[in-house]
């Protein structure tokens, strides 16, 4: 299974400004799976996702996409969609213009891009703002436009950095629903520090703490007869607080 996985991280480490942010991370992900990357702030989630998206090169180890190294074949990046922490919107473009640019940028043809933009606008519920400037969008619409940008070119792998951050509960719920839908035919990896995000839409959960992978498994495997959310919470707090106690000692 390991050889054929869509995304593989092999012993990936990353140092930034002399500090080790991610250490020896090994992970693999296949189509049809939503992986939640869970961790407290500063655990290395964003850095991990930036490496997967090819924005940051690992200091050690490899990120393999379909068995091929993203660092050596940057064109592979067209097959993934990435939503950074802040949605990368051009304030002076209209939403439909912006999405068309994103589609073309990933190598789509003009006619296909137009159809893809219409599809993604409907899918992400951007219909009423499609002719509005990206700079004038509310936080919720901006976040949705950011997700639309990541999926407009129909990528195999979708990398979302805190897709539900700053949204109200209704918007967050609709985004979670969208993510679970996307995860049916594609591979999705999303980072969050909200346990509810994970329980609502992820089949698998990886817990990152201080740059190390502390847990990786199906959500259902997380212990006992507890309700899922509750056991996840226990595991998460155990991992997060055990280390803090260790560090203090």
């Amino acid at each position, binding site marked *: 299974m390991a050889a054929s996985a869509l995304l593989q991280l092999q012993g990936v480490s990353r140092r930034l400004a002399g500090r080790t942010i991610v250490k020896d991370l090994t992970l693999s992900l296949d189509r049809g799976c939503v992986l939640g990357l869970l961790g407290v702030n500063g655990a290395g989630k964003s850095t991990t996702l930036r490496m997967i998206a090819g*924005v940051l090169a690992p200091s050690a180890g490899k990120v393999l996409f379909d068995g091929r190294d993203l660092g050596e074949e*940057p064109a592979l990046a067209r097959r993934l969609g990435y939503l950074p*922490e802040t949605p990368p919107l*051009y304030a*002076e473009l209209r939403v439909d213009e912006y999405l068309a640019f994103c589609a073309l940028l990933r190598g789509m043809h003009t006619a296909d891009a137009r159809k893809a933009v219409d599809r993604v606008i409907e899918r992400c519920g951007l219909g009423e703002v499609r002719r509005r400037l990206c700079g004038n969008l509310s936080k919720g619409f901006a976040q949705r436009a950011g997700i639309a940008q990541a999926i407009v070119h129909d990528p195999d792998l979708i990398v979302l950095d805190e897709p539900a951050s700053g949204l109200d509960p209704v918007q967050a719920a609709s985004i979670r629903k969208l993510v679970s839908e996307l995860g049916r035919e594609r591979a999705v990896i999303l980072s969050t520090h909200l346990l509810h995000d994970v329980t609502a839409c992820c089949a698998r959960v990886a817990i990152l703490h201080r740059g190390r992978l502390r847990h990786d498994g199906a959500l259902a495997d997380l212990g006992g007869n507890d309700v899922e959310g509750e056991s996840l919470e226990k595991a998460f707090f155990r991992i997060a607080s055990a280390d803090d106690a260790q560090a203090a000692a």
Partner: protein
Amino acid sequence: MSRVVARNEWRRLFAQPLAWVLLAATLAVLAYFFLLTLQGFLGLSPKLAGMPSPPGVTDLVALPLMRAIASVLLLVAPLLGMRAIAGERQSGTLPLLQSSGTGSAGIVFGKFAALCGFFIVLIALALAMPASLAVGTQLDWGRLATGALGLILFAAALTAIAIAASSFTRQAVVAAIAALAIGLVLWMLDAGARYEGVSSSFINYLALPTHLEPFLRGIVATVDIVYFALIVAVALTLAARRLDAERERG
């Protein structure tokens, strides 16, 4: 994909006030300058009529105007190019380009092409002023054409420098100041040497006016084209390398 980046850059350029304001202000200043030189020429023309082979309107109006365009470009190119990459960094859109598989060279070249397009428009509009004199007099079209070519190459070199400066910072203003300083240094590099009467040493070769002036006088020399092409190549390579380094250094 750098074509897509270029087209997007072009569209964004004209969706924002900066390019329009620069275009309008530049053309207004140049138009005023043009009218002044034209008036001077008209005042001189009775005297010129008595000369055996008098300098024409191309020498007395178009040439000074082209020199004025060059001086204006020295200032406008850094202002227009300052946001090329620094602005993307500031607004958080750089990851979009970096994760698109376009590659640093493609990103940098796309932006360069779009900005060059702007300067071609600016130079064409500015040169339409002396060209309009064709209604009433004989113009040396060849010299206007070589002058336009020279100015475009000059603008391209300054734009490339501005993009390189922009790739090193997050603050657009810092990039503009750095690009302006580099442009001015290259412009005045041989001023001291010329003051001492040296006009064909290595330091003269490095200076921008040495290579622009022949174009304005109607001479297209390979060495001058190579000089501008080299500046563009070095500056854009530097910018692309800087973007690549960002992946490594973070």
